[in-house]
């Protein structure tokens, strides 16, 4: 029994796994691209394989990276890692959502998760985005600050555009009742006209992001083509 197992292992070890892997990857790539000709069984098969493999791999990674090391720590030194039991209990409480009778238990870890996550997001957004970006938008607008001359003028103009653009974009999200007469009417017209400039800046941003998306997809296609032509067919240097 043992010898046959060793023979099988040797036979498997002698297989050209790398070549097989390249062929498998190439066929799966072609299977995905077969969707261009319409939905078909090959594409569905590849889709299911991808989802299944990705899910299975994520579970294995979570086990080896998260659960198994901490379980080993707890078993080796329960006194030092007693608090793992608390988190384990919270994790088990999440599973109670599947049972209507005790599903309320799942609210405890969910509340904990959402509360901590929200707090960290808010704090991080203030410290990492709001304050630094507000500070960075306060740009000196005098050319002399940049050394004067054409270069200084260009920097000052750039700073002015950034500042005005930031204010215009913020004004686009100014939500309030629009008055038609008096000071309120003037203010509404001012906000409306400046806010429309901010709207166009947002449109430009969306356009840039969309162009980046197209560029990214072209890069992905180039990557796949390099793989098919180089690693699989050997037509290029790979």
């Amino acid at each position, binding site marked *: 029994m043992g010898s046959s197992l060793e023979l099988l292992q040797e036979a498997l070890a002698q297989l050209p796994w790398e070549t097989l892997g390249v062929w498998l990857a190439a066929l799966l790539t072609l299977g995905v691209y077969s969707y261009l000709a319409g939905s078909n069984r090959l594409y569905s098969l590849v889709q299911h394989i991808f989802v299944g493999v990705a899910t299975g791999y994520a579970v294995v990674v979570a086990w080896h*990276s998260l659960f198994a090391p901490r379980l080993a720590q707890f078993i080796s030194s329960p006194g030092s890692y007693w608090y793992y039991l608390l988190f384990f209990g919270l994790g088990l409480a999440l599973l109670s959502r599947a049972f209507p009778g005790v599903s309320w238990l799942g609210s405890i870890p969910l509340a904990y998760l959402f509360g901590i996550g929200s707090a*960290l997001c808010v704090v*991080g957004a203030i410290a990492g985005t709001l304050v630094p970006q507000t500070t960075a938008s306060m740009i000196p607008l005098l050319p002399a600050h940049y050394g004067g001359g054409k270069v200084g003028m260009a920097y000052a103009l750039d700073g002015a555009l950034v500042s005005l653009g930031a204010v215009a974009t913020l004004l686009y999200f100014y939500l309030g009742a629009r008055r038609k007469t008096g000071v309120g009417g003037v203010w509404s017209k001012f906000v409306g006209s400046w806010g429309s400039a901010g709207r166009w800046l947002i449109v430009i941003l969306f356009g840039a992001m969309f162009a980046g998306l197209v560029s990214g997809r072209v890069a992905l296609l180039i990557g796949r083509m390099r793989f098919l032509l180089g690693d699989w067919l050997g037509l290029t240097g790979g």
Partner: protein
Amino acid sequence: MIRCPACGTDNRDGSKFCASCGEELSALPDVICPNCGTQNPALNVLCYDCLSPLHPEEEDAAGEDPELAPKEIDASESEVTEPGTDESTEQPDLPEEEPSLGELVGTEQPEGAPLPPAEDIAETDQSLAAGVDGSDQPGVPVAQEPADEEAPPDQETEPQAAEGDQGDPPESAAQESELPAEPKESVRTELETDASTVPEETESIEPSEEPREPLDSIEGALPLENIMALPHRSESPDPVKSGLEEVERATLLGHELLVPRLGEETRRPAFEGRGAVPGRGMRAFLYILLCAAIVVPLVVGGHWFGSSITPRECVRGAFEAIDALPSGSTVLLAVECDPATADEVEPAVAAVLDHLLERKVSIVGLSTVPSGPPVALQWLEEAAQRAGGLAYGTDYILLGYLPGEESALRRMPQGLDVVFPRDYARRQDASQYLLIQRANRLSSMGLGIVIGGDHVHVKRWLEQVQAPVGLPLLAVMTASAEPALSPYYRSGQLLGMVGGLPGAAEYEALRQRVGPASESADAQALAYLVVVVAGLLGNVAFLLGRRKPETADASPERPDSGERANG
């Protein structure tokens, strides 16, 4: 779907007229039961599910008015008990003498289908008699008020057709009965003679001719938008007050417009006109063209568009930040992308890793994406192999997957061996590795490099690690993430950015090396050319297809455009 009560044809939800026979599908919106929320036909008085009154306000008002209520109740009783003596009970008989709307336009109608049962009409009259105002107005619009307040907006905007025996609303039948034959003929004649002017009428109310806002294409993103778009209740047209002639005109106009247009719509070629999708042949041609634009330069090689690549300031910033690292320092590498986006950033990552290892900089890798570690391990092993067989654990290490996102990143300052008890590749105690012993804290890292599949992950590192700890960061990310992260580079929070394949080519140019990104430059340029030309041609075709109906006399307008304009 809405089933036509006249011919039985299933129509699209929200249709006002039957696409087959032109029959008006619903004149009044359904009423929502205030007790159980069941959707009832407009003329129901009691909910057919729970028998609760559908218009309790009317009953309350009737109860509060001692003079009005008894009188009205008596009237209703007399109407019910003495059929044939009042106007309402005569209504079912009248349409039998008069031709229906479908017959007016020459469409076959099933016998008796549009007419509601006499019991329903009696019930309706009973409800009218119990109404508040006691006027001769049908009570539905008045009674609709409380139901509308509780009804969801989609039910208000898309009234459903009466189901089954509820059939046509009786007031429309009554209005038909009161319509003299001559006005109908005149209306019909007028519509037939004006058939050629119908496109002009619809053109005049075409919403696309109104000034379009630049963000109109994303309308509907806010849940309140649909509600705000509803007409105010007091401004909404009253279907009963709209007048007999207008109802007739609307019905006939709908028939004249919809039936031939739908027939023409089915015969329309796939790639023609506004909103059309390119045909399969056109799409196949574009795919082949794009594929050829990429394959030919890769196979043939050469620099067709010149070999000079000018690096941008942000790429230069990244290059200089790595170039300034002292030999023997350590860098934290956060691989925040999955295999789906790895192909795009791989050339940039390869260029950066080669630069790091050339500078004798050690690398500590990790990921907060479950599928990130295998991608990171492959990149690190390939880079170590290119650098001459560097040792795992000494020159580079991969700690693996870190779940928890924000909270996990916040734990990083506690020490890497605390957050990662074991490494990813060998699953050994992380604290045993020399590299971790040397650089266990973020403060001992010379630089942090975030490889982002999107801008969200890079922002997370900026907000949760760079801001509180002060670890200098640079980003290697997809091209689509670059615009969203540019402000962070301008503010100095990011030392540099390498975005997508173009950024990788620029980084290779700074290192004066030819890598996969430089070799793909021609393929990139040709592919962009194809995309831009195809986009321009597509827009030209779109605009031409849009103007075509305006210039041609017989060119039809889409039937839904009229609906949108009316809506």
